[in-house]
């Protein structure tokens, strides 16, 4: 059970959060311009990395804010948290 450091509330138990999958997948500004394949890429394709992964989490039973998490999925260590709209930390690739 993770301890997640919500950027707005501080460290809380994982049970207060819900995971929202891979981060930094931006909704296309002009979906109508996209081919079926391009739209499907946005809609369905996710990386599911073993290793350092950028994820979205929501403090759903707390401040209800969405934020980003850098997590090493091989050992579940959370390496960094940052707010929506902020750039991902450069030291993780």
């Amino acid at each position, binding site marked *: 059970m993770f301890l997640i450091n919500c950027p707005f509330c501080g460290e809380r138990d994982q049970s207060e959060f819900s995971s*929202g999958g891979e981060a930094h997948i931006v909704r296309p500004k002009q979906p109508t311009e996209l081919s079926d394949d391009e739209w499907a890429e946005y809609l369905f394709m996710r990386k599911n990395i073993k290793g350092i992964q950028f994820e979205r989490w929501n403090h759903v039973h707390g401040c209800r804010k969405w934020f980003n998490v850098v997590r090493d999925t091989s050992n579940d260590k959370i390496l960094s948290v940052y707010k929506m709209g902020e750039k991902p930390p450069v030291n993780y690739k």
Partner: protein
Amino acid sequence: MPNYRIHKTEYIDETKRVSFKYDGKTYFGYEGDTLASALLANGIHLVGRSFKYHRPRGIVSCGAEEPNAICQIGSKKSLTEPNVRATELELYEGLEASSQNCWPNVKFDIGGINNFISPLIPAGFYYKTFMWPKSFWKKVYEPLIRLSAGLGKSPTEPDPDIYDHKYVHYDVLVIGGGVSGIIAAKMAAKNNLKTLLVDDKKILGGSTIYQNNESIKIDDKLSSEWLKNEIQEIKKLSNLTIKTRTSIAAYHGYNFLLAKENLTDHLPEEKKKNKIRQRLWKIRAKKVVIATGSIERPLVFNNNDRPGILLSNSINKYLDYYGVTCGENIILFTNNDSTYETSISLHKKGIKNIIVDLRKSASSELIKQAESLGIKIYFNHVVTNTFGYRKINSLEIMKLSEDGNTTVGNKIRLSCDCLGMSGGWTPMVHMHTQSGGKLDFRDEDQVFLPKENSEDQISVGSCNGDFDLENIIDKTVNKINKFLDIDNQDYQDTNIICSKENDKRNIWLLPNKIPLGKTKCFIDFQNDSTAKDIKLALKEGFRSIEHVKRYTTTGMATDQGKLSNMHALGIIADTAGVKMGTLGTTTFRPPFTPLTFGTLVGRNVGKFFEVVRKTSMHEWHVENNAEFENVGQWKRPWYYAKKGENMHDAVQRESKAARDSAGILDASTLGKIDIQGTDASEFLNRVYTNAWSKLAIGKCRYGLMLNEDGMVYDDGVTTRISENHYLMTTTTGGAANVLSKLEDYLQTEWPELDVYLTSVTDHYSTASICGPNSKKILNKIFPNLDLSDENFPHMSFKEDKLENINCRIMRISFTGELSYEINIESKYGHSLWKMCIEAGKEFNLTPYGTETMHLLRAEKGFIIVGQDTDGTMTPSDLQMDWIVSKKKYDFIGKRSLYRSDTIREDRKQLVGLLTDDPKEILEEGAQIVSDVKSKPIDMLGHVTSSYFSPNLNKSIALAVVRSGKTMKGQKLIIPMENKNINVTVSDTIFLDKENKRLNA
């Protein structure tokens, strides 16, 4: 009756005699006994039958690793408990226990025959034999196996006991109250760290607490005396919490651990009453010290499973802790020094014993002590066979060859009534690996050890592979100082003297002149798997330890292979000719020892199982005989049966009344989201499929919400309260998810929008009045409100007051009737409802529930998201193309509406169905076909909603059917178990297509 209690110890209170029943017979023990020690004191070793061969089995150990002494406790239907280890069960007055694995009884049983046909029961036997024919599995094989395997009985009535949960936070958690755990806890607590020490036993001290060998001393005292003093010291520390009878069940990431505390299991029945039985501790610790110790290994030789064969150190504990000897003529078979402590202690109490040692020689202090006492030692010897059916009575030993691969010389037969065995010690690395830690293998004594200690977790003591006391204490002190970054000097001058083991020899499968196929060298006592099974699995091509484990079932019983895993690995390594360390281990999964369901569930039983949401009108519904339906967490009135009515009658009456005169529905549970901000209109434009910018203030509009994949997600009516203020309604069940989804888009995709969302579901109560007389009723409640169609048309909104209390009134309809929804602050909901009922009396205003609501909307062909949709329906599939804006550039899900898959014409589409026999009501979920003759039958779709309409006097149904849009008028078939029902595809709207009733 024989008495094997041969001396007094401080842990057994001989002034407190305890009577208990075992297999129906009454025995006596003392307070402080476990069931196992009390049985042994009565001379009882035989406690069950083995799983596969039904061989007699006895008590083997004194702790959690016990594979044989598994009991069924209690006889009450609600309280009986299977799989209890007699070695852990504290004795109490009135305890009733029976051996679990012994059908029809422990002394003679049918399954014993398996012993003689055992060559026919090899590894994988169950897989190979009981597979075919398939139909035999459920009716023949499984009941037979279950019966003869004697798996325990579950209670058949609800558990009356109380269980508890508790959340705690500590700086340091120490797991295990042996010598290293006590030292670690003391160091941490004395350094002002808030510390929790847990131990699964009744008292602290581990195996050192009954240590009484003169060659092992701390500060000139016996190690047990020194430790008792330490325990007294730590009990005084104010920031140390000590929890005994508490075992860690699971070690999760981020130092989150679950522990089970036993509070009343050791008490007699009358003292258990009204007390919490077990408590689950949910522990978050900054640092965790693992000091879980080690368990002794058995040895694998022919017939190593007879009653009377125990682990050597367990014999020692029964003797020095419980005062009980396991025999009067004992042989100890070992490969290490620890057994010599047992031997010397037995000798001092006058119990004759001799030692058979695998090692060629040994030279430590302990061995010299044993030799000087005149204890006979057979070095370089191995036990090759044992004899005695219900209990061991003699054994054979032979000399080992130089390389240990075979035996040489003549057999020597020795008589005995008990055999102690010790194959060395296995560090309990379960906690370390559960936390994600890796293991290293130490060749010298063939043990897996914690590989790395992380900054928030460390292993100390014998679970870290440190076995002699000097090593344990020195290393623990150094490691804890470093780990906690402290400088504790308490043990600086502690003077430890102990015997040092110099000689080691390990043989996983002991050699024998008899071919392996004819021996019974047990590895897993509980699942009855032998060395031969492991070798057979390897011969049949299994390589991975995980596969061998499953194929032979080694290590898969309730003891999870605590005694057997190492030997299985060792034999695989030896057979395959690889180094043991390279094989890895099987995964150590939680729980370490079994947990009761009660502990896991805690207080969340009965009405506390889940949150129940009730509307303000709930009491009125109860008083008026409503049956309730669960919708999410809400309790909604389903129907209100009058005297003599069944559900069908009630629904028919309610539905008719709503259309003939007036009906009232408690609609408070619909999700309500308050939307405010300068971009509120633009936001709605993006989340709904239809256009919102032009909705006038005071008007309402129905909206359909999609997922980004184009599938219908939710629907509801949204009202524009003012320029930048909307009130959205959602389905009852979808409310929370819709809010989350909208928040997600606002926060992550469109942060530039000035929009604020607030859930107000609980803030308002809603009474929905429909029917031709609804306007008259409204007029009585709001006499000042102009209800004319010009002033207050369909799909519009007004505010008015009910005795100073603000109300929001929407003229919207989910039934197709003229209809008003009155919203009022929740606390006035009950009063509002009663006023409506009162005002409606003269118009036969009839309260109706969700079933009637569903029926009325189905007559009108309105969908229910989640009933007529299932996450695979687009608006077009629902024949709702009219609600999808062609003009809007984008909205959630728009692009997906013309993906190659969503524009397929043969998708399942919503249609109406009319049964040829208008009285026939279809079953929701029933499959739809066009032809029942050609096989395989082509499934076209299924019925989603089905009712008998009292207003149309016929059966109506909604369904999803492949290419349904083009099938109007076509005949289809609903095949049921005993008949085929003929139906015709129809329009989805069955009543009032012209919407005349809305303005009635």
